[in-house]
């Protein structure tokens, strides 16, 4: 029986083997413990620094704590997702096991999908493990479950986008070290570089819309939020958090008036989640296309 892509996705031997390999030994436990320890330290530091705030300020401290934890968690995701995914295919090439997978009855989609699920599972464990650490902020700030949900949607979309992106880089390279460096660089450019670029463009755009008025220059709100922000995980997170303002970059708004270039208004974080998921699907299809007959890799076979 030739395994169909759907059947493969549901009962994928690659996923099982990858999880077994990834979760064995001390490294995965160490990574999870270190990440949680760092998050815990941030939470503890905040609570100690703001111990016994006057009544009425408790909520503000809680919101700040929640913002700090959420931002740090996103940074962890930006760093750990490429690191845990980028070697998935290039590592197989380096070990010379890739060809052995390609001659099995598994489809290329099945192989790539199995790799992706296993790599993302580790990141999902990290995200889920962090939930209890958000507890104090949740209690102090009065942040609603809807906000937590929005923040975690941004996390999941980011993990998916970076995971598929790193997998594509992995399919195009031979050495895991190279694919990890390239993937991490792409993740940082996506988060930091895009924010800086978008903010610059937005600032320039705001200047263009400044008009003199009787009480000084009048800055008109930008009709469309800078389109780059829709692919920026930091902007998406900022829009999902309570009490944050993206400044002129976000236009002080959390809404996108022209999402995906269409006259649709929605929250920035939701526009980001939809766009990131769509982009991930496209990248996954592209990865499947290049993984089997990646240009340049068959040359080794001369002989």
């Amino acid at each position, binding site marked *: 029986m030739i395994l169909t892509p759907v059947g493969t996705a549901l009962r994928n031997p690659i996923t099982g083997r990858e999880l077994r390999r990834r979760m064995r030994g001390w490294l995965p436990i160490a990574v999870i413990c270190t990440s949680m320890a760092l998050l815990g330290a941030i939470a503890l530091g905040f609570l100690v620094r703001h111990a016994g705030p006057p009544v009425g300020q408790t909520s503000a401290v809680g919101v700040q704590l929640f913002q700090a934890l959420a931002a740090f968690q996103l940074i962890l995701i930006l760093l750990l997702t490429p690191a845990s995914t980028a070697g998935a295919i290039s590592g197989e090439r380096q070990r010379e096991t890739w060809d052995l997978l390609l001659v099995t009855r598994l489809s290329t989609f099945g192989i790539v999908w199995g790799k992706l699920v296993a790599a993302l599972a580790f990141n999902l464990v990290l995200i889920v493990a962090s939930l209890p650490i958000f507890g104090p902020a949740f209690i102090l700030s009065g942040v609603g479950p809807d906000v937590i949900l929005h923040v975690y949607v941004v996390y999941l979309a980011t993990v998916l986008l970076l995971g598929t992106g790193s997998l594509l880089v992995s399919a195009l390279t031979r050495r895991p070290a190279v694919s990890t460096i390239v993937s991490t660089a792409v993740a940082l450019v996506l988060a930091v570089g895009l924010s800086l670029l978008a903010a610059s463009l937005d600032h320039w755009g705001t200047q263009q819309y400044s008009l003199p008025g009787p009480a000084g220059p009048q800055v008109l709100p930008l009709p469309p939020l800078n389109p780059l922000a829709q692919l920026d995980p930091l902007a998406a997170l900022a829009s999902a958090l309570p009490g944050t303002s993206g400044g002129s970059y976000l236009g002080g708004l959390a809404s996108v008036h022209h999402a995906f270039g269409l006259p649709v208004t929605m929250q920035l974080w939701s526009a980001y989640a939809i766009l990131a998921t769509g982009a991930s699907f496209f990248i996954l299809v592209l990865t499947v296309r290049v993984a089997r007959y990646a240009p340049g890799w068959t040359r080794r076979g*001369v002989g």
Partner: protein
Amino acid sequence: MTESHLGRGEGEAGEAGYAIQIDGMVKRYGRTLAVNNLSMNVPRGSIYGLVGPNGAGMTTTIRTLATLQRPDTGTIMLDGIDLITDPGAVRDRVGYIPDAFGVYDGLTVAEYLDFYGASQGVPARRRRTLCDELLELVDLEDKHTEPVTALSRGMKQRLGLARCLIHDPTVLLLDEPASGMDPRARIELRDILGELSRMNKTTLVSSHILPELAAMCTDIGIIRAGEIIAEGPVDDVVAALSPAARVRVTLLRPEQIQLAERALASDPRCHRIERDDEQTLVAGFAGGDEELAALLAGLLGHGLQVTQFTLEPGTLEDVFLTVTELAEATT
């Protein structure tokens, strides 16, 4: 054990009883022509040795048959299935061992085989028994719980053979399988391939070690610069293309060796006369049984005391050198 699992191989006869038929295959890597209009026919149930110098296109041919790359042009039929249009069905019938294959760290031998069994769609309830049987076949039954990375190169090769048999393929593609094996392991590999051949499984094996190929193969194809330049049953190819058989003459007395040299030199059927030691001469010989008997009679007629007189047929090595040199001379 093999009766229970490795039964596939009979039936599904391809055209003219060939398991693999390649016609006019061309494969380029950029400007490099790796395979040039290659055509070959591998009989069903044979052990077909693909031999050639480095860079001749052996690995490219085997990787193409394993569906790891597409040919630029040409047709390839494997078990009667068109490899270009239905590579998935070909994968179902092919077991492949690359020249250098890696293993996963962190997996035991049993887990390794189980993983590939699952990847080949072998039902979970059968995999455990199957792994035991295959490990017994390749003499690794006591290595179930060993980490794969702890195996020697020879053991890894044997594990690779077990891996490529796990879905009961009809055609085995082995690229330099004996590389790194000790002599005992090579003999065992030869025995295993012989056993599989008796079950009508077809094996295409590449190697640079010609005596090894001569010992294990039933058929042979000599490849040079991406083309098959000679093909057929090993004995037929050697008989047809060997430059000459060699006659070995051992004398009782060393002082007769010069006389023996002159006697051999005077026979038009002998050439390239060389001393093997102080009592033995080796000479190229072109002729049949009658000419051979006449040569012996002539030596005895010269009063030579001959203790040994044997005809050594040409070797695969001779054929390979002759054919490749001839091909080089004509290009």
